């Protein structure tokens, strides 16, 4: 299927810094079907989250009488009611906010830590690299869900704590990736030249290395955020997530504890999981497409 690629002269020999992203990459990305679907899905949930905040101004509870619980969908409750007689659609839209907040904030922490560790380890080498990478390997080995559970059980279940726990357990893969990229970049002519004329290390990292690794960072940011949203939902489902705000994972936790699945309340069990899946899938589509867009550039080098 693939055509034979004739060997080309290796890399730029002039020592010029080639742009990390060719012009028009963004336009090509925007034309990809996967990106269009992904961005559409993301937009949907942002709208849902905003609508949820407007809807819940008057509170979610509609009072629980025996007649009002586990009602199937009707005109009054478009998605039915839950075990306390709350409107599922209102809960669902309110829950979008926690997923998005935790997803974005935890990802930001993971990306900053991962990029920093990878950059420092790859650029300075020596004992710093040994220490950082041994620690990174240990983080990669320990299974993440039990680690997140144990941490959340100990530090508590506020929004800030959950963000920290997920963020600080999601950076190791990123660090490995960035380090190997920096290892090859630091031997390239434009970096060697900057170092030989005495440009300070921090400036080299900021001006020469960071723009080069940025596409890699962006592609992985999207994928980390997908994993972070799944982690938050799982934690909430296990009863270890944010308790003070409605979230999709918490809804499923309530559904599980009240035996909604066994009682056939599909309107309560299906929507939160579908929302999580569609949001995560939207992000993986975008991440997948960015990775594909970047890989031909790497082959050509």
């Amino acid at each position, binding site marked *: *299927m*693939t055509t034979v690629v004739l060997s080309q002269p290796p890399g730029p020999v002039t020592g010029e810094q080639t742009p990390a992203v060719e012009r028009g990459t963004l336009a090509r990305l925007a034309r990809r079907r996967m990106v269009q679907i992904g961005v559409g899905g993301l937009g949907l949930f942002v709208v849902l989250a905003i609508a949820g905040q407007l809807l819940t101004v008057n509170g979610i509870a509609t009072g629980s009488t025996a007649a009002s619980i586990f009602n199937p969908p009707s005109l009054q409750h478009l998605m039915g009611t839950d075990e306390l007689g709350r409107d599922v659609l209102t809960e669902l839209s309110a829950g979008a906010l926690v997923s998005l907040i935790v997803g974005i904030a935890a990802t930001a922490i993971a990306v900053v830590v991962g990029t920093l560790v990878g950059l420092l380890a790859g650029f300075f080498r020596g004992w710093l690299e040994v220490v950082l990478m*041994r*620690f990174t*390997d*240990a983080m990669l*080995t*320990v*299974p*993440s*869900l*039990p*680690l997140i*559970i*144990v*941490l959340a*059980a*100990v530090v*508590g279940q506020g929004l800030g704590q959950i963000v920290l726990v997920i963020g600080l357990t999601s950076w190791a893969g990123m660090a490995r990736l960035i380090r190997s990229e920096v290892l090859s970049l630091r031997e390239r002519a434009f970096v060697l030249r900057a170092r030989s004329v005495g440009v300070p290390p921090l400036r080299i990292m900021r001006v020469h290395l960071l723009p080069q690794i940025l596409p890699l960072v962006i592609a992985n940011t999207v994928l980390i955020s*997908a994993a972070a949203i*799944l982690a938050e*939902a*799982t934690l909430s*489902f*296990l*009863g*270890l997530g944010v308790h003070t705000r409605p979230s999709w994972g918490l809804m*499923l936790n309530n*559904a*599980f504890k009240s035996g909604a*699945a*066994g009682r*056939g309340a*599909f309107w309560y*069990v*299906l929507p*939160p*999981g579908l929302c*999580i*899946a*569609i949001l*995560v*899938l939207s992000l*993986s*589509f975008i991440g*997948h497409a960015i990775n594909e867009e970047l890989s031909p550039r790497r082959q050509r080098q």
Partner: protein
Amino acid sequence: MTTASRISSRIGQTVLTLFIVVTFNFWLFRLLPGNFTQLLSRAGALDPAAVASLKQSFGLDKSPVEQYVLYIKNLVTFNWGTSYVSHQPVFQMVFQALVNTIVLITVAYILTVIIGVALGVFAGRRAGRLADSVTVTTSLALWSVPTFWLGLVLVFIFSVWFVGLPVSGMTTYAATYSTPFDQVVDIGLHLILPTITLVISSIAQYTLIMRNSLVTVLDEDYVTTARAKGLSSRRVLWRHAVPNALLPTFTLTWLNIGIFLSTTLQVEVVFSWPGLGSLIFQSVNQRDYPVLEVSFLTIAVVVIAANLLNDLLYPLLDPRIARR
């Protein structure tokens, strides 16, 4: 790098990782909010003499370094304390749960790898065609579905639409068996739904890796040579391409045991399978810290061992690595 130095450096990393995990565990559970002796006694305020004797029996009156040494000594000698809630020895509880988890994981993992690889071969030899893109997109979609929710949906389907398969536990409640065979059948029936959940939610990675690996291998010169010799395409695929394409999948099966365990924990909770996942879930909700601590450590050790095993076995399968 020689084989000996490679093995010793791998064992070094393993010991280091173990050390980090154990140390982390030690400090984490001592950072717990609240007074340790109060948590232990569950009785609120105790008289000072009782507190002192409790502290002494747990070595809390000693320096942190001495406590740490004592902690490691207790770990190594399987002296893991008793549960705050059931007052059973933690070792017994964790060991029983580990056995139950291994039963579930073994069946599900073998099925996942076999079906995943088969689908990967199916997609890989049709690369670029419709069947391929459908398989890849479906895999991405399955990866995005939260496992615990998939389990809930199966519980819903099999308790509302198709009643008959057990949706909870490992054996029928209060059942008596006339023969051991009956017991095995009962456990087998309880295994079905958790296994289906695990296979569906874990299969994607094996399919994708196997597909990509096969596509790469099919492009290599020796495959072209085999075709040029006039071998049938079936023979080229199964005898020349697939064995080599399996190598990355082999590594994945070991390295992914951690991820697979994480998935299993969720499935256990949904289906009340009495394994490590359920034990962790219970101990978290009951603040039963000794059980939580040891369960976590057990999982970490299993995964670290699997990683080491992969690195030691891989060169035997792929001589190119050993010679490097």
